[in-house]
Structure formats: structure tokens, C-alpha cells
């Protein structure tokens, strides 16, 4: 470097020392500079002799100048720090002399031609040392951690680990300190020293307090939360090999009851209840679901795209969503890219589903025929032509020709083990400025019930880009295309699942085993009964074979764009605009089909499910723009955060439907291919809008005292006048006792965190449903186009009539909730969260109890109130064993439990339903029916018991309880029976990993709930349905049973068996192994060789084991009603995670 130095005189500054000379330059021109000037042409001897003792450096340099003739250039101010010089040299070289003089000086020197320049100490002049350090960062379980930031302490230099946890960093100095940091882990610092390979094991943050939780319009540190928020990571969620992300929440958060009503692919009827049913209005108790901050449909999201889900349970957390937050809010956040090399991950599995449980029916024809006759005779049929002749029974019993005399198991013809496949590919990465997460997903699920399947394609593109240090922007785009195949049918009601899966199921139940689906002659013609007197429903195989299908396509495009401006350290501005476009279309085709008698091969009837092709297109376009300003300021332990924002939402729905009846060619299933003789069309549109202002104020003092206030003012198009706008406030406070100095002073090492929380707030519900349809204009008196009539039998006159009373005074339903909570962490790893809440919904948007004399449908009014109160408890313990034989074993165990009590506080007039009652003081829709106390065992018992209705009661019949003690049994003996809601919802989870193996299990249960089930599968011979094998033990005089009554015959059974009674009310409590995952990650050394960074194989099982007393099908069901419902799936699946 010296050699390369060139003359200062020329004004050139060698690059390598530019910094030094920069300083010097300043010294030259700005500071006082002394130059010992000599003639450059003078030549001097270069031998120096010096003898000094405690001389000044300047003095000494002057001597050297004199002897050598070299000029000396120095900053006199700098040289004030010079140490005294003591040298004794004789004929020394210049270099040597200078070296001696400068030995202990805090300066150095440079010789440039004939000038000696005094420079600062060469510590900084020393060439930068380059030490390259490599290593791997792993967690305590030994899994590599990608994305860990490694910074050189005190500099801005930093790198990140790659997908394998490997990193390479360069430092200049052995004394450099590397800082390893990663969210969720404890930072670690290492001094480089002599190492060039540094492997690090990062410890997981034992306390979740630093966890960041997504809340309404922002995030909050868990430690500072004052509301009741549960959060679930995408990783936890995705353990289940199922398709619907809403189902995946089951059992994962206390106070959040998720019920998957059906196993039908793409039509699971998942209900999410946060803290109970808070209303009896048709508005319903579904929570508001937001995808990346914008209301959306849970089922549109590909589960693997979910980063985390936050559930805002109390008023304080949810009230920033105001008028739609009454039932809680679910915030789904999708994954964003991470800076670094592109990583490609494939995650896929292949599973097999089978019903968790299936009816065991009598499938032996002879047995069926005998029971049939018995049931008919018991039901009063005496006509021999309506009974199987004995010789026919014997034919079936002794037949060897099972084609002619089959024992058909109809259920086995429609149920099967069905495959499901699920593939996901994720690309993530980016630069410091721009990151991306792009994913593609595909699922293909065949139903365990034939004729039902679901296919879905998903794509997501999440981009984030920093324009500069102040401005960020990004987009989240979701694309979805789903296709659901079902058997053609009519949805039984818009609030229920499509009735066709149930319809096909019950059709298969409603067949006798005496015939198969096809004629025995091999012609392939479909059957209709073997004997005329048999009862049945349509031949399900004919429906399946003939492809009488309803194909539903649902498309979703959710596009969001956002930007964030950081004006100053304290002030930022966030704006998001979103468009959700949803389109559902279906095509439903049915034709008529002849069915033949199995015995005679004669035409029996023509199967007619309602002919023709119906096509419907539905579209919803929803737009949302919200914008808010954030302010945050900290001073002297006071932390203030404020937020103020604005939002506008608009939604427009429209549909179009067309129908043609007659199709000459059944393969041409398009409207234009149908005859135009019978056709019709329909369609309409409607819209709503919501405009809102919202704000939040947070304050805390040293993280010790926490306060928060929220407010939202919502204006809705659904209300008029002064009721258009509604204000929803909330307040909450927290006290972190463990932050108090006096607690800290006690030095309780076992107590890591103790926080008390309390909140109060109000929320709204603006969903108005009239006659099963969302009503957007309930305050207006409207006339409907209804009541068309043909006076002359040739033209149809359009009718117009008012059908509903309007209510100009309609407004929000208001829910007021108080929550008191506790968060405790002890011994670092043991966490407990407990909450008590009291939630009252008032001004319920209910249909007025209008007398029929009015002659119009009741308007929706604000009346009535419901109270829910309950407790929730979540506990967890996690640890990693760091020594001994099990070193590296990481595990986590947890449990959630919650209890909720629902009560109608003000319902109005008691309303009695089919088997339910709504009455003040009782839970909504409490069971109300006759109570069965047993089965009559003798005529004497019948005679000595109260008379039951006008029945001719016999031994073997159900014995009802005389509740009112008036000596007779009638409708007045109906009584309230508890169990409409579970007493407890609970779940346990466990996960562990060790040396590449991982295991996790989740058990979920409900306790203390009943379900009223009837119809097929419960009552024998409904539409001829085979009885379940339980009925082999039906009461007979020879074999008196105390559990199974006399056998009666389906619909023509006397009322005495079919009345709404507790006989049909079953305990639906269960505990089930919801999910079990066992995986193994193949050591990276091995997979690296084939270019794979990580390879994990796993087995995941769902609903593998169920403990329940429930008879019939699965206890986890849509609720009370018909026993036949599409069954739940038991899934065995095998999967693969690969990262490249």
C-alpha cells in the first residue's frame, strides 16, 4: 500500500487510504498546518543520527528533516498528543529512525517521495482482514432454520440462513460478534474468535409473550393484549388432511365451537360458533370472517396459504368491526414472501376416506320379509295380499340363485372407500425490496357416497415491495375454481346443505333386500320392487348410472392492493382496496326413466324427479376500501398508539336462471338443445352498502398498565333515517402484575408472567333474513310480483301484492359483552389462559310475533334478548429436552375446555315447535316432548297406567310419563328436556418431535349434548327401509325387551310409536381422535445428494377413533332432524413435504 501511494502534491488520493487522507485533507486546508519547507532539490545524506531523551516529537522530527532533507508534514494539533521521544541512533537509515521515533506514538507516518507525512495510528490503516464464517442454524429439535438473520454486531452487515439453515458471513476481525435472531426464538450472540465454522442451536422463545398477534386493522404484542384473542398458526391448522379450512379450526381454540355437519365434499356445512349462539334471529350466529382484512369466504382459501388465524372473541377485540362483529371475528392472514433465495415447496397427500360409521341393516331377504310381515300385522294390516307369502320367504331363504333371489345390501352399493388427493406448490422468496409468495393448489376429493365429489384449483400471489424506506405496497390475489358434483336434486332449504346427498342416501335405505338394482335378466333395466305391496323410494343406482347430476361451479377472485407510508417514526398510513368477485353457477339435469318389477320384468312405473335442465348463474361483486392513520409514540415509559380510519363497502348480488323441460337428446344438456315449449327464466339483483369510521387508542405505562379503547361508527343501507348509523364502543384494560417493581423485587423465578385483563364493549349484527333470504330493504313497504293468475285460462296476469309488513324503525341488533381474563406463564414453559364472559344480545332482529289475522308476513323488528355466559380455559406446556438420552426431544401438550350457558332472557310469547320450545329462562330451542319411561311389559301394566291419547296401547309399546299427573297422557304431558347445547367442549393436543420423527395428535369432544333423530335408520320400514339390526331384538311376548319396542311399519305405523318423544332423543356426546400425524424427515445429508433440501414423509389420519353412546350414524352432525345425513369421513392419508 505504501508503494502505491502517490504524491500528495499531485492531489491524488490513493483509494485504499482515502478515508485517512480525507481527514488529512481537512487538516490541510481547515486546520492549522505547519510545513517544514525545504528546497526539494537539496540533497542530503540519508543517514540519521539522533540522541534524544524525553524530547518532543516535533523537535525530533525537525532534526530528521535537517539531516535527511525530507520535508515533514504534520497536523500540529494532532501532535499535541505526542509522547516524549527517547532515541539513540547512529547512522541509522531514515526508516529506522522514524520507526524508533514513532514506536510508541499514537501516530504513524508515510513517506511520499521526499515528504514524511505524520498520520494517525495505523490501526485503521491496517488492511481489512476478511474472515469467512459458515455454519448451520438449527432449532433444539435439530431441524434447520431457514430465514434466521445473522448480523455483525455494531454494523449493518447481515445475512440470512437459506432453506437448510446454512449461512456464510464475512467479518473483518476476530473480535466481531455475530447476532443470530429469528422470530419466536431467543437471540444468540457469538464472538468469532478463531472459528470459521459456527453451528448454532437457537432456543425457542419459551414465553409466547413476544408473539405478535393479528388484531383488527393491525397487530399487537401478545403481552400487551387486553382482549380475548385466540390465535392459531397455519402449521397447526394444516395438520389435518381435510379440505375445508373452517373445519380445521375444530378443537384448536377455547370458546370457538366448530361443527362439521357433513362429510360431503365441498358442502361440509361447517358452523363456527364463538361463545355460543348469541341470537335467535334469523341473522344467525356466524362470525365475521376476514381474509387479509377483507370479508370473504373461508372455504375459498387454500389452507396451505394460511399463515395464521386470529379469533377475536370479546367485544374489546371485535368492536372495531362494529355492526357485523356480534358473533366474533375470525381474521385469516395469508403467507407473505421472505427475502432470500427462492424456495420451492411441494406439499401433497393422498388419502382414503370411508364413513366413520354406517348403519347395520337387515340385509337377509328372508329375515326382512318376516320382520316386514310382523310389522305390517302389528300395524293392523290384515290383508294377506299385503304380506309376503310364506312360500316366497322360503324361496329366498333356501335359494341358491342369488341373482334371482338376492340379499341386496343397498348401502354397500352407494357407499365406498374414496380417494382424495391434495397437491400444493409454493414459491417464496425475494430481495430485500420485494418479496413474493406464490402458490398453486389442487384438490380432488371423491365422496364416500357415490355421485358426490369436489375438485378445486387455487392460486395465490402475494407480493410486497418497498419503494423506499418510507413506502411499501403490495397485492394479495386469490383465484379459485371449484367444481362440486352432486346428484340432481332440490336443495331442501337455503340454510341447509343441498338435500340431494341425503335424498340419495335415504333412497338407498328405502329398498328391500329382495331385489337388486337391475333386473335379473341381464338387460340392465332398472328395478322397482320385487312385490307390488313393497314400499320403496326411487332406485338410487338408476339415478347414479344415468348421471342425473347437479354440477356446481364456484369461482372466486379476491384481489387486494395496499400501500403503507411511514411518514415519520411515529406516523404511518395504511390503505387497502379490495374487490371480491364470486360466481356460482349450477346446472341440474334430470330425465324420466322407466323402472320394472324385479319378479315379472313388467314396467312398474316411470321415475320422475322433475324433468329438464335448470341452469343458474349467481354473482356477487363486493368492493371494500379502507384507510387508516396510525400514530405511535413512546416517552418515559408511556407508550401511546392511536389509530383512526375509514371504510366503505358495497356489495351487489345478482342471479339469472333458465329452465327448459323437454330434451329430445339426453346427451345434449344445454338449454338451447331443449324444446322451447316449456321454459322459464328468472333473475334479480340487490345490493347493500356500509360506510364506517373507526378508531383505536392504546396506552400503556412500561408494559405494566394497559388500556385500550375502540370505537366504530357504521352507516348501513339496510336501515333508514336516524337508525342508519350505529356506534359501537369498547374499553379494555390489563395489568401485568409481573411487571410491577415490587413483584420483580420478590424475584419469583418461577413466575414469568401474570396478567389480568378486563373488557367491556358493544357489537352489532345487521344481518336481516326474511323468509330464509337476506333482506336488504327491510324498512321499506314493498310489493312483490306474486300471485299470478289466469282468469281466462289462456293468459297469465301478473299479480302484485304486499306480502310483508315493513318496519321503518328497524335498526341493529346489539350485543354487549364483558370479559375478564387471566394469562399466566410459570416455569417458563407452562401457559394458562382463562376467560369468563357475559354476553347479552338485545334488540334482536327477529320476526315479530305477528298474529295470522294480519295476513302479511311478520316484519323483522328489534325485540328480545339472549344471554350467553361461560368460561374458557386453555393450558399448554412445551419443552425441549437438552441433555440425556432424549436430548433434542421437543414436545408440546395442551388442552382447551369451555363451557357456555345459553338463555333466552326476553323472548316474548312462548313458541312451541315440533319438538322444541322457546321460552324465557331456557336455552334457545330447548327440547320439548313426551318423556318415555320405558316399554309396557304386560297388559296389566297398560291397564294400570294412564290412558295414552286415544291409542290402543299394547304391551311392547312406549310408555309415556304422565308429567302433569292428570291421569292421562296427552300433549300437555310434553316436558322440557335439557341437552340442546353441550355442557362442555374440550380438546387435547400433543405434539412431539425427536431425531427427525414427529408426532402429533388431537382429540376433541363435546359432552352433555343430545340430538333428536328420527326417520330412516331410526324407525323401521320408513318407505320400506330395512330395519337396523337392533330391531332383531324388538319386543315380542316371547322376548320382551326393555329397550326396543314392538315392531311397527314405517309411515303407516300408529302414532303411539312415532310421537315426538325422548325415545328419539339420543346422547350425542363424543370424544374422538380427530387427528393423528406421524412424520419423518429424512436427514438432509441424504436428500441433499438428490438436490432436495428437506424431505418429510408423513401419515395423517382423521376421525380415526370415536367414543360415543350415539346410535346410528356419527354423533357429529348437522343437528337434530333426520338420522340419515351424509356421513363423516374417516381418512387415512399419506403425504410428502419437499423443499428444493
Amino acid at each position, binding site marked *: 500500500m505504501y508503494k502505491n501511494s502517490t504524491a500528495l502534491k499531485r492531489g491524488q488520493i490513493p483509494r485504499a487510504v482515502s478515508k485517512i487522507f480525507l481527514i488529512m485533507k481537512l487538516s490541510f486546508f481547515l486546520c492549522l498546518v505547519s510545513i517544514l519547507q525545504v528546497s526539494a532539490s537539496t540533497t542530503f545524506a540519508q543517514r540519521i543520527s539522533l540522541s534524544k531523551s524525553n524530547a518532543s516529537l516535533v523537535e525530533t522530527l525537525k532534526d530528521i528533516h535537517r539531516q535527511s532533507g525530507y520535508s515533514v508534514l504534520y497536523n500540529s494539533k494532532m501532535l499535541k498528543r505526542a509522547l516524549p521521544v527517547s532515541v539513540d541512533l547512529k547512522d541509522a537509515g531514515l526508516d529506522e529512525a522514524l520507526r524508533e521515533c514513532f514506536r510508541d506514538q499514537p501516530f504513524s507516518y508515510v513517506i511520499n517521495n521526499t515528504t514524511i507525512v505524520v498520520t494517525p495510528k495505523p490501526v485503521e490503516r491496517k488492511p481489512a482482514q476478511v474472515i469467512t464464517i459458515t455454519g448451520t442454524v438449527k432449532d433444539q429439535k435439530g431441524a434447520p432454520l431457514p430465514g434466521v438473520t445473522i448480523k455483525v454486531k455494531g454494523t449493518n452487515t447481515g445475512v440470512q440462513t437459506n432453506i437448510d439453515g446454512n449461512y456464510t458471513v464475512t467479518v473483518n476481525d476476530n473480535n466481531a460478534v455475530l447476532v443470530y435472531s429469528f422470530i419466536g426464538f431467543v437471540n444468540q450472540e457469538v464472538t468469532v474468535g478463531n472459528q470459521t465454522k459456527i453451528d448454532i442451536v437457537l432456543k425457542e422463545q419459551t414465553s409466547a409473550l413476544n408473539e405478535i398477534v393479528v388484531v383488527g386493522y393491525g397487530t399487537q404484542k401478545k403481552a400487551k393484549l387486553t382482549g380475548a384473542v385466540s390465535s392459531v398458526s397455519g402449521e397447526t391448522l394444516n395438520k389435518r388432511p381435510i379440505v375445508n379450512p373452517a373445519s380445521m379450526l375444530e378443537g384448536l381454540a377455547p370458546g370457538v365451537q366448530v361443527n362439521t355437519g357433513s362429510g360431503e365434499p365441498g358442502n361440509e356445512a361447517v358452523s363456527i360458533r364463538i361463545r355460543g349462539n348469541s341470537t335467535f334471529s334469523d341473522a344467525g350466529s356466524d362470525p365475521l370472517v376476514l381474509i387479509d382484512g377483507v370479508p370473504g369466504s373461508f372455504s375459498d382459501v387454500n389452507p396451505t396459504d394460511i399463515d395464521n388465524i386470529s379469533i377475536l372473541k370479546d367485544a374489546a377485540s371485535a368492536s372495531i368491526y362494529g355492526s357485523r362483529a356480534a358473533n366474533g371475528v375470525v381474521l385469516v392472514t395469508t403467507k407473505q414472501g421472505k427475502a432470500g433465495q427462492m424456495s420451492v415447496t411441494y406439499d401433497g397427500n393422498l388419502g382414503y376416506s370411508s364413513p366413520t360409521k354406517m348403519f347395520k341393516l337387515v340385509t337377509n331377504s328372508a329375515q326382512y320379509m318376516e320382520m316386514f310381515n310382523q310389522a305390517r300385522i302389528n300395524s293392523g294390516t290384515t290383508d294377506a295380499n299385503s304380506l309376503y307369502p310364506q312360500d316366497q320367504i322360503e324361496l329366498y331363504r333356501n335359494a341358491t340363485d342369488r341373482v334371482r333371489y338376492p340379499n341386496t345390501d343397498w348401502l354397500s352399493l352407494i357407499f365406498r372407500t374414496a380417494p382424495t388427493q391434495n397437491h400444493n406448490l409454493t414459491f417464496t422468496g425475494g430481495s430485500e425490496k420485494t418479496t413474493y409468495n406464490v402458490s398453486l393448489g389442487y384438490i380432488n376429493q371423491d365422496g364416500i357416497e357415490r355421485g358426490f365429489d369436489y375438485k378445486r384449483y387455487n392460486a395465490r400471489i402475494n407480493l410486497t415491495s418497498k419503494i423506499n424506506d418510507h413506502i411499501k405496497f403490495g397485492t394479495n390475489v386469490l383465484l379459485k375454481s371449484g367444481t362440486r358434483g352432486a346428484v340432481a336434486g332440490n336443495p331442501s332449504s337455503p340454510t341447509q346443505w343441498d338435500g340431494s346427498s341425503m335424498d340419495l342416501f335415504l333412497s338407498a335405505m328405502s329398498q328391500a333386500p329382495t331385489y337388486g338394482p337391475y333386473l335379473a335378466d341381464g338387460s340392465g333395466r332398472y328395478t322397482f320392487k320385487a312385490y307390488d305391496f313393497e314400499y320403496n323410494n326411487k332406485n338410487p343406482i338408476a339415478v347414479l348410472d344415468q348421471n342425473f347430476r347437479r354440477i356446481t361451479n364456484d369461482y372466486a377472485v379476491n384481489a387486494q392492493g395496499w400501500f403503507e407510508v411511514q411518514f415519520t417514526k411515529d406516523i404511518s398510513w395504511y390503505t387497502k382496496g379490495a374487490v371480491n368477485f364470486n360466481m356460482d353457477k349450477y346446472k341440474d339435469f334430470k330425465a324420466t326413466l322407466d323402472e320394472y318389477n324385479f319378479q315379472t320384468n313388467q314396467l312398474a312405473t316411470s321415475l320422475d324427479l322433475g324433468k329438464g335442465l335448470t341452469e343458474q348463474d349467481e354473482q356477487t361483486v363486493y368492493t371494500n376500501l379502507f384507510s387508516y392513520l396510525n400514530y405511535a409514540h413512546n416517552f418515559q415509559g408511556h407508550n401511546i398508539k392511536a389509530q383512526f380510519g375509514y371504510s366503505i363497502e358495497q356489495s351487489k348480488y345478482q342471479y339469472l336462471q333458465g329452465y327448459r323441460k323437454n330434451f329430445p337428446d339426453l346427451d345434449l344438456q344445454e338449454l338451447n338443445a331443449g324444446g322451447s315449449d316449456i321454459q322459464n327464466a328468472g333473475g334479480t339483483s340487490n345490493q347493500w352498502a356500509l360506510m364506517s369510521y373507526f378508531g383505536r387508542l392504546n396506552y400503556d405505562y412500561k408494559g405494566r398498565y394497559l388500556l385500550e379503547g375502540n370505537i366504530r361508527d357504521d352507516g348501513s343501507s339496510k336501515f333508514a333515517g336516524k337508525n342508519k348509523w350505529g356506534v359501537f364502543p369498547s374499553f379494555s384494560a390489563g395489568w401485568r402484575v409481573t411487571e410491577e417493581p415490587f413483584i420483580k423485587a420478590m424475584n419469583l423465578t418461577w413466575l414469568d408472567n401474570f396478567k389480568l385483563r378486563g373488557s367491556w364493549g358493544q357489537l352489532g349484527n345487521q344481518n336481516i333474513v326474511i323468509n330464509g333470504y337476506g333482506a336488504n330493504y327491510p324498512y321499506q313497504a314493498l310489493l312483490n310480483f306474486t300471485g299470478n293468475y289466469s282468469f281466462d285460462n289462456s293468459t297469465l296476469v301478473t299479480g302484485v301484492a304486499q306480502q310483508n309488513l315493513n318496519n321503518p324503525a328497524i335498526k341493529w341488533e346489539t350485543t354487549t359483552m364483558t370479559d375478564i381474563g387471566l394469562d399466566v406463564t410459570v416455569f417458563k414453559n407452562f401457559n394458562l389462559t382463562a376467560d369468563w364472559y357475559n354476553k347479552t344480545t338485545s334488540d334482536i332482529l327477529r320476526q315479530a310475533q305477528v298474529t295470522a289475522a294480519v295476513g302479511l308476513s311478520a316484519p323483522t323488528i328489534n325485540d328480545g334478548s339472549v344471554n350467553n355466559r361461560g368460561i374458557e380455559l386453555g393450558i399448554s406446556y412445551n419443552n425441549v429436552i437438552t441433555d440425556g438420552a432424549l436430548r433434542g426431544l421437543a414436545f408440546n401438550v395442551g388442552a382447551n375446555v369451555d363451557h357456555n350457558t345459553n338463555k333466552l332472557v326476553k323472548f316474548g310469547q312462548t313458541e*312451541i315447535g315440533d319438538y322444541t320450545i322457546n321460552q324465557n329462562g331456557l336455552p334457545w330451542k330447548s327440547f320439548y316432548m313426551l318423556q318415555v319411561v320405558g316399554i309396557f311389559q304386560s297388559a296389566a301394566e297398560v291397564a294400570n297406567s294412564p290412558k295414552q291419547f286415544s291409542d290402543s296401547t299394547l304391551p311392547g309399546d312406549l310408555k309415556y310419563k304422565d308429567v302433569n299427573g292428570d291421569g292421562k297422557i296427552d*300433549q300437555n304431558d310434553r316436558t322440557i328436556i335439557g341437552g340442546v347445547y353441550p355442557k362442555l367442549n374440550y380438546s387435547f393436543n400433543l405434539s412431539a418431535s425427536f431425531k427427525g420423527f414427529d408426532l402429533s395428535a388431537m382429540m376433541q369432544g363435546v359432552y352433555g349434548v343430545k340430538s333428536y333423530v328420527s326417520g330412516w335408520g331410526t324407525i323401521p320400514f320408513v318407505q320400506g327401509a330395512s330395519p337396523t339390526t337392533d330391531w332383531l331384538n324388538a319386543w315380542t311376548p316371547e322376548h320382551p325387551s326393555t329397550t326396543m319396542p314392538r315392531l311397527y311399519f314405517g309411515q303407516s305405523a300408529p302414532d303411539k310409536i312415532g310421537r315426538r318423544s325422548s325415545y328419539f332423543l339420543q346422547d350425542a356426546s363424543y370424544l374422538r381422535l380427530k387427528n393423528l400425524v406421524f412424520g419423518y424427515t429424512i436427514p438432509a445429508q441424504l436428500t441433499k445428494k438428490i438436490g432436495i433440501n428437506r424431505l418429510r414423509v408423513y401419515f395423517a389420519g382423521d376421525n380415526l377413533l370415536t367414543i360415543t353412546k350415539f346410535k346410528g350414524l356419527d354423533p357429529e352432525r348437522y343437528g337434530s332432524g333426520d338420522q340419515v345425513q351424509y356421513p363423516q369421513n374417516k381418512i387415512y392419508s399419506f403425504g410428502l413435504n419437499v423443499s428444493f
Partner: protein
Amino acid sequence: MKNRIIITIILITSLFLGACKKALDLNPNDQIATSTFYKTKADFDAALAAVYASLQSEEFSYGMGFRDGFTDNGYNQFNSGAAKDFVQGNFNPTTQGYETAIYNDSYTGIARVNLFLQNLGSYKGADISDSQRKVYEGEVRFIRAFLYFQLYSIYGDVPLVVQPLDLSNQKQPKVPAAQVLTQITADLDYGIANLSTNTYYTNGGHAAASSAKALKARVLLFAAYGSTGTPDATMLTQVRDLCLDLMGQYKLSTNFEDIFRDATQKNNTEIMFSVNFLAPNNTAPWDMYYGDWDACAPMQNMVDAYECTDGQPYGTSPLTDTKNQFNNRDPRLRKTVYADSVDFGPGKVHHPSNLRPTGYGIIKFLEPNNMPYGFSTLSQQDAVILRLGEVMLMYAEAQNEIAGPDATVYKAMADLRARVNMPAYPAGYTKDQMRQRIRHERRVELAFEGLRHYDLLRWHIAGPVLNAVVSSLINYHFEDKFYHWPLPQTEIDKSGGILIQNPDYK
């Protein structure tokens, strides 16, 4: 930086202003606000259609056969309208079925009438003439009378609503049945005075004065028997005179079955009022319910009630053929009842997909051209509510009660029977004998037209008749309290003590 903030604030503010609050004022796209309707005569025509359409409810039109399931005529295997509950005697304020359907649907129609009248009253447009105004009023009041008669005949005392109600006055007490009857006759008298004097079949499907007369005769005949079964002569005289008047104006349909089949209903000279349907968009499931589902199955005692062609009862007559019951029988049997399958001759046979619990089904309302019967059958047969056949029977009944079996009674019955080639009655009947024949004739002629139920009530013979029914399918049980049905419990509850339950059901 400062500038940037300022610009941003301006931007935000403009966002607020840009989204003006009008965004929250939305109106429906497929419904009309009441305030903007009723501006022309056409609007009233549309509203009138909806008033007539309120009669298209099952229990007022195509469910007429189900009403016979409440009697000894039919068995309803699906318990439609809670018919099975009723005949078994398990009938109470919460039974629902027709108990609530008749109540609710009557008032729904009444509300449409009341709203129509209110809007007509306040309409000042010149495009509706005074006479047209009276015709409108007469038509809707005729329909209101029909609906109130449903309530009057089944429940007795009910709330009397002649003005639109709202939330403030919705809880209405019941009024004595007599007051309801007064309203019914007032409405009908208005119709008789103001409606067209054309026959119904030439009046374009609108109620005519004769329609109102026929209904009035039915109402008074019912009312005449009171709660005892002994008729009031004054009322019967009115009935007789009304019937006489109508018998002069209308003629019997040549073929019995033509009254009920689609193609021959148009311009049928017998029909005095019907509830109309028009395929494909305004249909009724006649063929599916009766022809495929066998939703109301004639009982054996009903089949047995048809005489042999000699006018002698089946079983007594020498023509009785027990091997083939349908042989030598009153032709109305084959035109009313089918066994095994619906058979209109070659190529017109339908095998019902449901079982026939009694072995029979109703063929009376089926249209041969609509085969096969099922979900996709679009039936457009009109529901015949009032016809000359019934009027002749009413005449005979009233005249016999007033004056005994005189020649006019004999003639009316002979004419009616002659249409189906049944012999006239032998001369010399006593009043009682004639009464029995007329009652029997009503059962056969009007089978499954929903009138048997009224007859059993007004004659006060429901107890003896129904309790005598022997059926392997169902245990009949009738108590006197069933002469008046209970008001639906939900109505009692909702009225908060203002509406009082019929005393027998408290």
C-alpha cells in the same frame, strides 16, 4: 416531508368526501314501493290477480280431495293437513296441518282484499269508472266471503278483520260466529248486487253475480243447521230461492268428467266458480298427488257407497258383482275412483309409484293428456269450487226440508242422476227417505270435492258416521268438540290473552 403529509391529508379528506353518504340510500330492483304503486287501473288489475291467486293454496283448491281425508271418504297416507290426526281424534291446538293452514291462508287472502279495498278507496284516477269500481269491490268481497266462510264453518268464532292491520292493532279478539256470518252475507249481497249478471263461464273467469249467489246458498245452507243439525226454515227458503234462480241460468255439463278435465272446463255451462291454473308457469300438482302418490285414497266404504246401475245399493242389488266390483256400478264410480292403476284406455295407463294403501286412488281430477304423472307433470286443471250439480242438490235438500219430497225435488235429483244414466228415484219417498237419498247422492256426486266435511258438520252426524268407520289402517275417533276446531295455539300465544281459545280446547 411536510408537503407529503399535506398532500396525503388532502387525499384522505377527498376520499371521505368522495364517498358521499348517498351510497347508503339503496332501493330494491325487483320490488315496488307501495307508495309508488296504484297509479293506474292496470295496477289494480295486477293486485286483483293476486287476490284471486290467494285461493290457489292447497286447502282451497287442489287439496280439496285431502279435505275428504277428514271424513269417511278417504285415507291420507301422508297425513296431509293432519287428516290422520283429526280422524283419530288426536286433534288439539298444536296439531297444525290444515288447522293452521286454513286459518293462516284465509287471513292472508283477507289481507289482500282489505289492502285492495283500501287502495281502491283512496284512488282518484278517472280511468276506473264507478261501475268498474263496484265490480272490483264485488269481486274481492266475494273472495273475502269465501275465505270467511272457511273460518266460520270450521272454527266458528274468529277475529273479524275488514281493514288492513299493522303492528299496533294486530292483536284482535274473536267475534261471535253470527257476526262473521253477517259479514259474509253482506259481502255476498254486495257481489250479487254489483257483479256481472253474465254466467260465470261467459264472464272471463271473474266472479259473477251468480257465483256469489251459489256461494251464498252454500253458506246459508250450512248456517241453517246451526249447532243442532235441525235446519232453520227461513234460511232454507233463501237457499231454495237462490238455487232456483241459478238452476234457471246454468246447465249441467253433458259429461260428468268434463267438469274436471282441463280441455272441457273452458266454457263449461255447469261451472259457477273455479280457481284457475295455467301451465307451464302456474300449475297445480293434481296429477302427481292423486295419480302418482295416491295422496288421498278412497276407502272401501266410499267405494261401496256407489249404487249399482239399477239404483239399488251395492250388495243388495242383483247386479252386484263381487268378483269385479266396478261392474254394473253407478258410472261415477269409475269416473271418481281407480284401482291398481290409472287407466284411461290403451296408451293412457299410469302405474302410481306409491303404494295404494286402500287399494284405490282418485281418478276424478286427473287429466289423461298429462301422462305420465310425476314431478314434471304440469297440471293446469282448474279447481271447481261451485257448480250446478251442487246447487241442484242444495235445492233438493232445502226444498225437501221445507216442503217435503215434492215433484221439484224429484226432478232435480232425476236430472242430476240422468246425466250419468242413473235411474230416477221411485215415487213415494217420505221426507226422511228423500233426505237420506239426497245426502247419499251428495256424497257420491261431490266425492272428494271437499264438501263432505262441511256436510258432516252441518248435519251434525260426524260423530255417528265417523265413529262407525271400520278401517284396518286407522282407528277413527270423533268427539263432539271437533265440530269446532281449536284455534291454532300459536295464535292464542301471540295475541297475549286477547284471542281466547275455543272453550273445548282450553
